[in-house]
């Protein structure tokens, strides 16, 4: 039965990929990418990798789709026609790469093989010791935030670097003078407003639940940050960018990505000052399990703050530009 579900989901993914190749309408392609991510999340869920599935659904199907749509709003809606271009060389490259990849899979261990190197190296140690060392049920959170906290620090810095790149390229500038964020047609949409008013607080609450319950159930700072950002983006879409800016002033938002990384990094410095190694939580409290949980809680807050504020900043910057270039027929300026 499991095999059947796997085959079905993989077939859907293949169909999605082919559809993405054949479509020329980029909005449709974006929706197909969201679908692709969502099916992949389903696939991860069937493998019981719930944290990964959660992340894939929230990031891949959720926020990435929104950001690409906002980007498309400022560029072109349709892919340029590439008729007349030589297809032989790309085809050759793709075939050779594909053949090499398929040849490479011959050396991989069989799916689910207990003798696979991934299951023999450090995984047994984590599985056997998480309960004793850290005392939380969600082993993924333990590995992510305690055993492998360095890697997670690296990931958070990557997210931070992403927003630095966006700011460096597009700038934090306000919209040009004279361009009013005039009430868009969405202002008349009573149904959307009422439902958004009901939904947004619940989403924010859910984000907090995912953040602080991440040690006990799938979730954690990354997912919570994305969900939090999604709620604010929904608010901005329905009530307008300026209203959302009043809720989260850009002056404060600009600091938050750095604050998140600092919370993470300073936790490490704190443990050093208390006499331990960098990000070695045992010095934080008497009881080793309490110490570990305290450390995990602190760095997860750092992760959540960085991820949420980075997603919001990128969205705000993109949307601000879209306002600046919007013309009357709704087509984006080129």
């Amino acid at each position: 039965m499991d095999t059947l579900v796997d085959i079905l989901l993989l077939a859907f993914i293949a169909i999605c990929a082919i559809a993405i190749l054949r479509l020329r309408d980029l909005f449709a392609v974006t929706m197909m990418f969201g679908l692709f991510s969502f099916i992949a999340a389903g696939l991860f869920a069937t493998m019981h990798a719930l944290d990964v599935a959660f992340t894939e659904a929230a990031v891949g199907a959720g926020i990435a789709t929104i950001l690409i749509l906002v980007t498309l709003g400022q560029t072109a809606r349709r892919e340029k026609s590439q008729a007349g271009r030589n297809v032989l060389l790309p085809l050759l490259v793709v075939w050779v790469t594909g053949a090499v990849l398929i040849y490479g899979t011959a050396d991989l261990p069989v799916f689910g093989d207990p003798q696979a190197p991934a299951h023999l190296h450090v995984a047994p140690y984590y599985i056997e010791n998480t309960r004793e060392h850290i005392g939380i049920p969600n082993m993924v959170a333990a590995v992510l935030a305690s055993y492998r906290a360095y890697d997670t620090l690296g990931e958070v810095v990557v997210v931070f670097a992403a927003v630095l790149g966006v700011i460096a390229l597009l700038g934090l500038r306000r919209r040009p003078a004279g361009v009013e964020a005039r009430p868009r047609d969405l202002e008349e949409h009573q149904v959307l407003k009422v439902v958004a008013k009901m939904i947004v607080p619940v989403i924010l609450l859910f984000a907090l639940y995912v953040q602080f319950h991440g040690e006990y159930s799938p979730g954690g700072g990354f997912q919570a940050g994305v969900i939090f950002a999604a709620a604010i983006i929904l608010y901005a879409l329905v009530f307008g960018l300026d209203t959302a800016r009043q809720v989260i002033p850009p002056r404060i938002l600009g600091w938050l990505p750095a604050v998140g990384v600092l919370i993470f990094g300073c936790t490490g410095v704190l443990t050093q000052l208390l006499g331990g190694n960098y990000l070695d939580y045992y010095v934080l409290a008497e009881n080793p399990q309490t110490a570990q949980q305290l450390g995990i809680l602190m760095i997860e807050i750092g992760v959540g703050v960085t991820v949420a504020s980075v997603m919001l900043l990128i969205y705000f910057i993109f949307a601000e530009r879209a306002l600046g270039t919007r013309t009357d027929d709704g087509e984006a300026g080129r």
Partner: protein
Amino acid sequence: MALALDLLSWALILVGGAFGVIGGIGLLRLPDFFTRIHAGSVTDSMCAPCIIAGLMLQSGLTLVTVKLAFLILFLLLTSPTATHALAKAALHGGLVPGKEHSPAEEHRG
């Protein structure tokens, strides 16, 4: 009692599945955009809640049931809204109900 609950739950799951298939057929076969999103919303607002209600009966009085109840509530709020937003956006974009193509699309070819 247990048997009755089990039967009811399976009936709900099957009805939900049937609605899913009907929605899928409608999505493929109906003539224009507005009738098609109607078919899509059938999937959202009948298929999923029926299946979830069936699953609630399967899981009994547990935390899972409470979570599933929240899911139904969330779906019943959001999916009609999404359909409404789609239809409104299409109308705003110049799509006329009953016509296959919008004037803008015909103009573009």
